[in-house]
């Protein structure tokens, strides 16, 4: 079956600085794929390129059979790719509920919006408790939950999540990963960028390892976990 997302030979960067040299990856419908690698490898750049915030110098990106390279972020969002950035980009002076409703901006049917809102509250019940609270006043962990929840409100075909556990206490990080797992079980396709390789490989089906702008390894998560090089470099054994 054709992949939901195909990324081929991407070369991308900022001005004169090339960050991604030759990146190719696939994500199939229903998969939970991780993109791992050290700091500065280009993981965030990869997600920004896929989501349309960065236009690559070279390469092809195909989503649902359609080429999306060069399309602006808002159009790519409307095609069904939801990007949950590391910086969250929440609407800080809006309530939790308004943030979530904004997440469903593309969905005109009010009933469908409420349905998705209820689904999201079901997964993230802490958010429902804090419905009327301003996003900017919530704790770091709650904000991450809100960002992921907001990303779901558009009923995306593909969810891109950038380092959700960064800066979170272990317990909170665990909650976030559990939530992502639940989402995958509900049928959401997820591409996860994570520095926490151990946790990522435990919950995902497949993984890619990015180093210095190139994919250096690709395999089923279980196999990567047992790979000697991977264990030494990323799992600390």
């Amino acid at each position, binding site marked *: 079956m054709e992949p939901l997302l195909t990324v081929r030979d991407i070369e991308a960067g900022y001005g004169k600085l090339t960050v991604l040299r030759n990146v190719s990856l696939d994500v199939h419908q229903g998969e939970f794929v991780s993109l791992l690698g050290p700091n500065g490898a280009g993981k965030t750049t990869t997600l920004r390129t896929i989501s349309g*915030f960065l236009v690559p110098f070279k390469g092809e990106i195909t989503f649902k059979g359609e080429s999306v390279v060069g399309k602006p972020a808002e159009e790519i969002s409307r095609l069904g790719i939801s990007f949950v950035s590391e910086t969250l980009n*929440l609407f800080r*002076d809006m309530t939790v509920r308004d943030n979530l409703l904004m997440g469903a901006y593309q969905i005109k049917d009010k009933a469908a919006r409420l349905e998705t809102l209820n689904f999201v509250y079901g997964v993230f019940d802490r958010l429902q408790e804090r419905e009327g609270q301003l996003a900017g006043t919530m704790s770091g962990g709650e904000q991450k939950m809100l960002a992921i929840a907001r990303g779901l409100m558009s009923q995306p075909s593909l969810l891109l999540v950038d380092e959700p556990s960064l800066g979170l206490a272990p317990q909170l990080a665990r909650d976030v990963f559990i939530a992502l797992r639940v989402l995958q079980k509900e049928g959401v396709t997820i591409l996860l960028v994570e520095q926490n390789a151990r946790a990522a490989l435990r919950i995902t089906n497949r993984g890619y390892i990015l180093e210095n702008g190139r994919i250096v390894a690709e395999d089923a998560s279980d196999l990567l976990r047992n790979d000697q090089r991977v264990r030494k470099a990323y799992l600390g054994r």
Partner: protein
Amino acid sequence: MNGTLIQSSLIHKASASMKKDTAAWIVIAVTILTAIALGVFAGATQLANTIVLGGMWALMGVGLALVFGVMNVSNFAHGEAFMVGSYVAYFVFGPVQKAFEGTHLAAIAPVPGLLICILAGVVLGVIIEKLLIHPLRVRTKQGWVMNAFLLTAGISLIMSNGARLLLGTKFRGVTTYWDLPSINALGVRLPSDRAAAFILALVAIASLWFFLQRTDTGRAIRAVSQDEAGARMVGVRVKWIYTLTFALSTALATLAGASLLFMFPAFPTVGLRPLYVSWYILMLVGLGNVGGSIAGGFIVAVLQTATQYFLGSVWEDVVPLIAMILVLLLAPSGIFGSEVKGIHEQ
């Protein structure tokens, strides 16, 4: 991390926000006291006039704050929109008044002019944004704030001088605008012109508030002003929001100009005063603070009128400006807090 560093920065933040709140309360208290003094010494009518003026300044300030908060554009052509409103209203009102003369429609002769002005404002705003601001944004790599300011300053020059070239420097005013009886209540005699202007401002601001708070598009506008990347992530077409916001701001200004034709006749540089007042309001309440600008309009109107009454016309701008300097010293981000999106992007 250094513990004392965190503590001192927390204290700094707390004291800064305390200063801002104190400044806000002081300004509000002074304004209320001044308003009362004005009512007592100058009479209720004068106070009513001040409130009417406040509504108009609020209209101007809100439009400017919107454009600043959403688009990060320092619109120095904002006053020229007011001028366009004045001129369009004048040139429509004349013939309409003649046509309605003697009939019972004469009472609402300004209405066609007002409606056309709103339309003119929208059209003008769309033209300026699409033809001038948008291309500049696409081309600007850095220094956006300065570029946008220079652009609007240039637009202002061209428009006011263009008006002078095409229409001459003659003052074009009206003596009676709304042919309706004046309102006499509670010892206040309010001419229909002023009453109508106030009602218009109130309706416009209330509509804008409802639009921003309760509609999808309004929420999208707020989203863009708070986090543009986040807005794009949820599918907001930011380009369209920019055009809409600018058109809205321009239409509010033309409406203000049209409503106040009886007070501010149409002439090429009539927009300067509203422009200064608008910027004054913004700096006082905090750049980009839309809600605060509404209060700001009334605060400035009270301060201006009181200064004029108690100290004389000459001091009209001096005292409020001194107040602003004090506010900038004590609470530089404005008394209600600013929502500047550009400050982190360079």
